[in-house]
């Protein structure tokens, strides 16, 4: 082992012990995703007619293709599973790998833990090596676990294992990408944002290009497209996995090269001196300041999302025209083309709304991060009442998603109304406005969690997960109305209907108010998080103990 890698082995051991468990939820979620598909498929779609209906439903909803990618074969358990799990499972595995790498490199440097390590008998590249090995190993393990568990639940051997390995392959590629962004970003947050942003762009590009039936080469320029092309259960091509391994080796090489160039604790993008005087004089401006970066980034993302979805709506007849079941439904008078377009637009804007809730919840969860990092304490030691600090952040958390939905919604409406498909500009904008209260309910849930029960910040995401699962998968799985009603987006009226049910918005807004009240009462009454002293945590502690 070369000198620059000295100490990798004990570091890897310590990392695996401490940070390894952070990867466990990702293994759990992806395994559940895949195993549940094979479990429920025969139960919900027992015969060929049901399966054909499913294929028709999936074919008629291009928005599904955007998330799940192409459905090659929905007539078998494994075909269904690879459609439902491949893209999302890979996405989730990649997220887990990115967080693991960034945490073990830049987050450690930001917190000062790494300084202790770097001053020990430790090669310059050991920390990156240990982090990369951990993420590679964890991704591989995830792939194996998913494959084996899926087989256990009734999946085919080769189909399931190949599916598992596409997750591992995606994890490997994003281990490489994260090792690069960890060298470029100014701190751990920007390193994470860059890697997750790359993942998001590639993910959306893959779904979009597939859905609009772009030329085949567009699949091959996108690493996520390679994983798609393994086609588990409908061809079983193993060789694209080699591309993934090659990609991660190259990306890691770039990462290690950049790591050798940069200074400890600094990214490749060097910080400039800032203003000596402050313009931020209220908690409200502080909240805006802290969320400025994400708001700008997400705004750009929603402009892109608006174009993508708007394009979808305009081409609805092309998209639906090829689908026999839909044509029959229209011909039989069961649905009108206008009604179909209106319902489709409502679904699209619900998806925009769910995505918009993500930055909202992020803003709320950041309050807790600030608190744990002792940055709320000095503010609370000034003449600032707790409710005002919380309110400043909550307003940003509710306001930003509102703007995002309106940006994307207006773009969808403009594109749709210009395409002569029977949609008025006003209808589209009104539908977007009607979606906003549903977003608020989801964000308000996280306000309640962080205010009243902040010990489990992950719970703040339950709202987003539930609405995502119910809105996207509920109708496909024929869930009953009461189950669909759990999602606030189910209550959004379809404004193009002759008699939209506006009352639904009143109910979910009442729920929103209750959530907000719980959150504010909790934040006002509870003890603030304290760190009585600053003990060494995790790997630093293990190594410090071993050195004595």
């Amino acid at each position, binding site marked *: 082992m070369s000198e620059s890698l000295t100490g990798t082995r004990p570091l890897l051991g310590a990392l695996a012990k401490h940070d390894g468990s952070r990867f466990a939820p990702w293994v759990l979620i992806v395994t559940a995703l895949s195993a549940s598909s094979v479990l429920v498929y025969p139960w919900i779609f027992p015969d060929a007619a049901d399966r054909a209906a499913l294929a028709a439903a999936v074919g008629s909803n291009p928005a599904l293709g955007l998330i799940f990618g192409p459905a090659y074969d929905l007539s078998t358990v494994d075909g269904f599973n690879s459609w439902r799990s491949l893209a999302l499972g890979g996405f989730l595995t990649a997220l887990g790998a990115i967080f693991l790498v960034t945490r073990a490199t830049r987050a450690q440097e*930001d917190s000062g833990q790494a300084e202790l390590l770097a001053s020990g008998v430790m090669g310059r590249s050991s920390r990156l090596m240990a982090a990369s090995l951990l993420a590679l190993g964890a991704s591989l393990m995830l792939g194996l676990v998913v494959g084996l568990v899926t087989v256990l639940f009734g999946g085919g051997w080769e189909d399931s294992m190949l599916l598992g390995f596409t997750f591992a392959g995606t994890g490997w590629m994003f281990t490489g990408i994260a090792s690069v962004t960890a060298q470029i970003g*100014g*701190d751990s*947050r920007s390193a994470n944002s860059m890697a997750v942003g790359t993942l998001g762009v590639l993910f959306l590009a893959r779904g979009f290009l597939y859905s609009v039936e772009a030329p085949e080469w567009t699949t091959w320029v996108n690493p996520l497209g390679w994983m798609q092309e393994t086609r588990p259960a409908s061809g079983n091509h193993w060789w694209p996995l080699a591309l993934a391994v090659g990609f991660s080796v190259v990306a890691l090489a770039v990462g290690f090269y950049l790591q050798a160039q940069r200074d400890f*604790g600094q990214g490749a993008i060097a*910080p400039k*001196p*800032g*203003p*000596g*005087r*402050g*313009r*931020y*004089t*209220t*908690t409200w401006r*502080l909240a805006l*300041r*802290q969320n400025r970066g994400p708001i700008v980034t997400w705004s750009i993302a929603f402009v892109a999302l608006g174009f993508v979805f708007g394009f979808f709506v305009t081409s609805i007849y092309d998209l639906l025209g090829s689908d026999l079941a839909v044509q029959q439904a229209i011909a039989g008078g069961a649905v009108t083309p206008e009604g179909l377009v209106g319902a489709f637009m409502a679904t699209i804007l619900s998806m925009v709304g769910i995505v918009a809730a993500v930055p909202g919840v992020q803003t709320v969860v950041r309050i807790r991060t600030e608190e744990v*990092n*002792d*940055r709320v*304490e*000095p*503010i*609370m*030691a*000034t*003449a*600032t*009442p*707790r409710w005002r600090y919380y309110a400043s952040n909550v307003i940003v958390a509710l306001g930003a998603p509102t703007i995002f939905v309106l940006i994307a919604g207006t773009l969808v409406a403009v594109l749709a109304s210009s395409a002569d498909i029977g949609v008025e500009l006003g209808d589209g904008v009104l539908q977007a406005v009607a979606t906003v209260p549903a977003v608020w309910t989801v964000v308000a849930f996280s306000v309640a969690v962080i205010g009243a029960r902040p010990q489990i910040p992950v719970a703040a995401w339950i709202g987003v997960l539930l609405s995502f699962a119910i809105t996207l998968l509920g109708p496909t799985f024929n869930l009953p109305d009461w189950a669909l009603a759990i999602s606030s987006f189910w209550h959004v009226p379809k404004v193009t209907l002759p008699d939209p049910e506006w009352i639904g918005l009143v109910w979910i807004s009442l729920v929103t108010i209750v959530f907000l009240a719980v959150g504010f009462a909790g934040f006002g*009454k509870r*003890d*603030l998080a*304290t*760190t*009585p*002293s*600053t003990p060494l945590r995790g790997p630093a502690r293990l190594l410090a103990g071993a050195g004595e």
Partner: protein
Amino acid sequence: MVTGSAVIETEGLTKSYGTFQALKGVDLRVERGQVHGFLGPNGAGKSTTIRVLLGLLRADGGTVRLLDGDPWDDVTELHRRLAYVPGDVSLWPGMTGGEAIDLLGSLRGGLDEHRRTELIERFELDPTKRGRQYSKGNRQKVAIVAALASNVELLIMDEPTSGLDPLMESVFQDVVQEAKAEGATVLLSSHILAEAESLADKLSLIRDGRIVESGTLAELRDHTSTTIHAVLGRPLDSAAVAALGDAQVDGSRVTAQVESTRVGDAMEVLTPFGISSLTVTPPSLEHLFLRLYEPDDTDAGP
């Protein structure tokens, strides 16, 4: 219950985190216009006490008065009149030190421009660096400048100098003296003895969630012994050794530990033997302080 001159008064203050009892009955009294040293080992309850005083934590039991108000209920009104320097300063990573000072100052209700400029100069702080670029000592300076730039009645400081170099430490001491001269009250938690010794009018020592000693430096010293070294003309007789109590005799040299109040008595015993050289060392706070760290036996009061 509260007399006019007490700025901080707690009685029987208790606080638990889950099953761990951090404060087991803290009785602390800080007089107006004084610098009050708050000493104790790590984990004794200094920071917890301070956080209760700031209304960040809610006390489980006992009474707390701060500036004639309740730190939990009257939080905003009280905080206009006080400033806080945390022990572990965490700044916003992307915000410059200057921005942080202005933010905290305006949230407190404004700061003294002249004082801000002067303090930044005296502490040699570069206010254009971003939070993540500062060293521990420089983060500490940002918090100190932010606190001292507003003219407040009460300064609460939790180990404020733990990252400062000796030069800055002495600047800090000057600045605290000036604040006191202008009438401010200071609660200074520390485990740097020299700092407390030179700044504090009164001291409270906390250990294991309780105040074990409290008083002026002189009062605390009375409880400990003074060391006397003497070289005598002729050796001590046994009666004299017995009279001194705790004494070691090496020919004509004598080293004795006597209670601070009994130094005069000891002189009377020694003088007849012809003193040719004499040093009397008053007890340092360090003696007192080290006793805090010893295992719980003789000195831990109720």
